[in-house]
Every structure is written in C-alpha cells, then in structure tokens.
C-alpha cells in the first residue's frame, strides 16, 4: 500500500464526510422552506439572503443551550446514545459509489471509499445499527415517554427491515452482485433497476421511510402522544446530534435508493460527455447528476412528510407485516420465475 493511496482515500473520506454534514445541515433549512412553500408560507428568510444562514444560527443556538442530564438517567449511556446515532448515520456513506473512476495521468482514482463485495449487506447492517442509538438514548433517559418511543422505534425498524431485506433479495436476483459499485456500473445506458424492479423499488422506498423515522412513519417522535419521543430528555448538542443523524440518514437512504434503483451516477448521453470532456471532468459531472438524484429523493421525502398524516401504530404494524412482507415475497417469487424462464430460453 503506497502513501498516495492512503492520502487519496483520506481526502475522499474527508470530502464525503464534509458534504454529508453540509447536506444534513441544509436539509433542515430545505425542510422548513419546502414545508413553507407547500403550505403557502415563506419559511425562514431573516438570517442572511433568503434565510440562507438559518442552519448556522440554529447550530449556534444548539451549542449555546444548557446541557441537561437528568438525575436518574444512566449518564454513560445517555451520552453514548446520540453519538452512536450519529456514527451509524455517517458510516453508511462509505460504500456508496459517488462517481465513475477518475483517471489522472495513469492513476485511476475510484470515487468510492471502498467497494466491498457485500456493499448492500454493509448498508443494511449499518442501517439496522441505527436503531441502537435511539434505543439506548430512550432507555438511558429514564423517562416513560422516551422508553415507549424507543420501543416503538425498535419494533418499527425491525419490522420494516424484513420487508426491506426481502425487496433487496429480488434486486440481487436481477443484478447478480452485492457490490454497490458493480450494481451501479451495470445500470449504464438506461438499464436502471427501477425498470426491472418497480414493485421492489416501491417496497424499498416505503421501508426506507420507515427506517429513517420519517413521516408517515414518524411514530417514535410523535409529539401528540409521546412529547418529544426518544429525545424528550435531551437538550443542547445531544439533541442536535439526534436531529442531525435523522437528516444524514435521509441523505444516505436517498443515495442508496438513487444508486440501487435509479442508476447512481449514470445518465443518458454519458459516453458522449466522456468523449468530449475527458476522464477527469466526466466523472465529476456524473457525481453532480448523482447528487441531483439524491436531492430529488430528499425533496420527495419532504414532500411526503407534508402530505400524508402519520399512521396509527396498529396500521403501521399491519402494513409492515401483512402487506409489505407478503408483497416482497411475491416479488421475489415472480422475479425468480421470470429469470428462470429467460435463462431457459
């Protein structure tokens, strides 16, 4: 392993980390703006032009707030909770291919931190770990509401993970690979997986809404029933971490959806652009396209949040176990039958 490889990866990690934090930061702003526009309002517009500095002001506010740790809380776990949430949210970005390989001179730089051959499993594992942050935080608060909401979050995530995993299995049947880099590269030239797996995509998307605790599956945080949800007892930057982790999760799942089903950095006319601009600029354009897709998904997340009311808990469980899981299994069976027929003839 040469030193330039280490530097290259380090720079890439730093950039991706910075970008995901920046996007999470401005997602809070975008959320408020989108909500406002969807409700015929203006949204924040006081801090800077168009309120562009609002996230900074909010960040400063979060830091300045008093740090409160309840007397009867388990102090160590109380502090671990938000950290764990943040950690699991951030490490998900490691296997996402942000662009095709960049060639400078005779050096090939992949725009992906690591292309492990079980990329999907890794994402899946990291997303499942996310529930520990919520669970530990809710339990350590020593508060009934926090605990109830943590239990809700845990059972919701576990229920929807099954359907999510099953919908991914159908996708794997189509792609024949678990490496995200390969899956995205195979979608080159309009062979986007969403065209082969429309039902699988729908299931996956619904499940990612549930996994990121977004509306209409935001039961762990429903104010009307559980005050603040699992972060009722949190204040200052610990609360900030929880809220931030939610937005990073949203960013990561938007990136995963875009790369699994919507061709990642692929776009029509890619080869022509590559021939015109060379191997340094073209991958960057691909990355820009990928980010456009991500932003579109993030916007969709927000759009849905301000449209659909929250599910009741029994409806949530009903949808998860009695609708999504059978549909996902049916999807697997149909996909495998079709693949078997195609391979036979």
């Amino acid at each position, binding site marked *: 392993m040469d030193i330039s490889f280490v530097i290259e990866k380090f720079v890439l990690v730093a950039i991706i980390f910075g970008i995901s934090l920046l996007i999470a930061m401005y997602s809070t702003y975008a959320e408020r703006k989108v909500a406002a526009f969807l409700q*015929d309002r203006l949204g924040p517009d006081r801090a800077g032009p168009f309120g562009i500095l609002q996230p900074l002001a909010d960040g400063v506010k979060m830091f300045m707030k008093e740090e409160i740790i309840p007397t009867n809380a388990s102090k160590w776990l109380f502090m671990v909770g938000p950290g764990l949430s943040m950690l699991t949210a951030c490490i998900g970005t490691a296997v996402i291919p942000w662009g095709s390989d960049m060639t400078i001179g005779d050096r090939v730089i992949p725009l992906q931190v690591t292309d492990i051959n079980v990329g999907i499993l890794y994402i899946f594992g990291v997303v499942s770990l996310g529930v520990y942050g919520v669970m530990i935080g809710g339990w350590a608060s020593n508060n009934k509401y926090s605990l109830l909401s943590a239990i809700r979050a845990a059972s919701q995530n576990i229920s929807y993970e099954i359907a999510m995993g099953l919908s991914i299995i159908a996708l794997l049947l189509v792609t024949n690979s678990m490496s995200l880099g390969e899956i995205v590269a195979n979608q080159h030239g309009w062979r986007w997986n969403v065209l082969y797996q429309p039902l699988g995509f729908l299931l996956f998307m619904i499940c990612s809404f549930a996994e990121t605790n977004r509306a209409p599956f935001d039961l762990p945080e429903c104010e009307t029933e559980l005050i603040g949800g699992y972060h009722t007892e949190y204040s200052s930057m610990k609360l900030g971490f929880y809220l931030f982790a939610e937005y990073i999760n949203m960013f990561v799942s938007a990136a995963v959806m875009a790369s699994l089903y919507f061709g990642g950095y692929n776009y029509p006319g890619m080869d022509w652009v590559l021939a015109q601009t060379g191997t340094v600029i073209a991958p960057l354009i691909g990355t820009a396209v990928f980010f456009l897709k991500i932003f579109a998904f993030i916007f969709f997340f927000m759009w849905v949040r301000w449209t659909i009311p929250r599910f009741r808990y029994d409806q949530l469980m009903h949808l998860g176990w009695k609708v999504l899981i059978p549909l996902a299994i049916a999807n697997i069976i149909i996909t495998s039958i079709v693949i078997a027929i195609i391979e036979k003839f």
Partner: protein
Amino acid sequence: MEPLTSKKKVLEKKPLTFAERMYLPAITKGLAITISHFFKKEATIRYPEQQREFSTNFRGMHSLKRDEEGKERCTACGLCALSCPAEAITMIASERKPEEKDLYREEKYASVYEINMLRCIFCGLCEEACPKEAIYLDGPIVPSDYLRKDFIYGKDKLVEAPLEKK
C-alpha cells in the same frame, strides 16, 4: 338514540374498494394537491417591511389635533377621561397665559395629557365624547416596548406635529 340533527341525509359507511385499499392512488392525489400549493403565491406579509393597509374605520394610536392655525384644540374638559371605560386617560388643566395665545385655542388647556396604552382598549369612546374634535384614533399600531412606564404616552407623543409656517 334520537337523531342529534335534523339532517335527512344518511351516510352509509361502505367498505373500501380494492383500489381505495391500495392507498397509493389516494397518496398520489394528495401529493398532487400539495405540489400545486408549492407554486401558489404565499399569503405572508413580511411585517416590518410590508404593512397591510388599514381599513377606513381602524382605530390605532391617538393623536391630539391642532386647528387650522396650528393651535391645540384640547381644552382639558375631561370628557374623554370620563368616557374612557378603561380609565386610561389622565390630564391636568392649566390656564393659558397671554403670550401663549397662538399655542392654545382657548383659555384653558391640558398642560399634562397622558394615555396609558396598556390600559387603552381602543374603543374610540374618547373620540366620540370630545366636543372640540381634539382627539382621534387615527394613528398606526402602538409599538411594543420593554417597560411599563414607556407605555404611558404624554403630550410629546400624542400631539400632532405643528403646522409648517408659510
């Protein structure tokens, strides 16, 4: 049970059809409605910069009027204070000195005239009671402040600006 209303139409709860149970058509419909609002004009008025126009009978801050020659109309008769249901108005009357002839219209005038804006309910009864047409509630909204004492408006804030000399 006896019907609670005289409404004749009986609504039957039908079981949902398959398409309705799918939820997705209804969700797309909802999404279409919300996105249509995305492009509509917002109803917000950016208050300090933009101000909504008051209606013609709006009652805002009081002003003590002057007559055509720029003399104060108020004669400190006290009818406004008497009529005030919130007891917001106090005044002290004084006698006009000969050299003040072009300042006050009549021999008696209010040397102190105070309205407590925290008490005032902007009913406009002072305006109605005034025989000299000296007080009108034709000003803007009374601005906010930090201290109670700053809400007691004296003549410095209430009396109209003097007429410009020609």
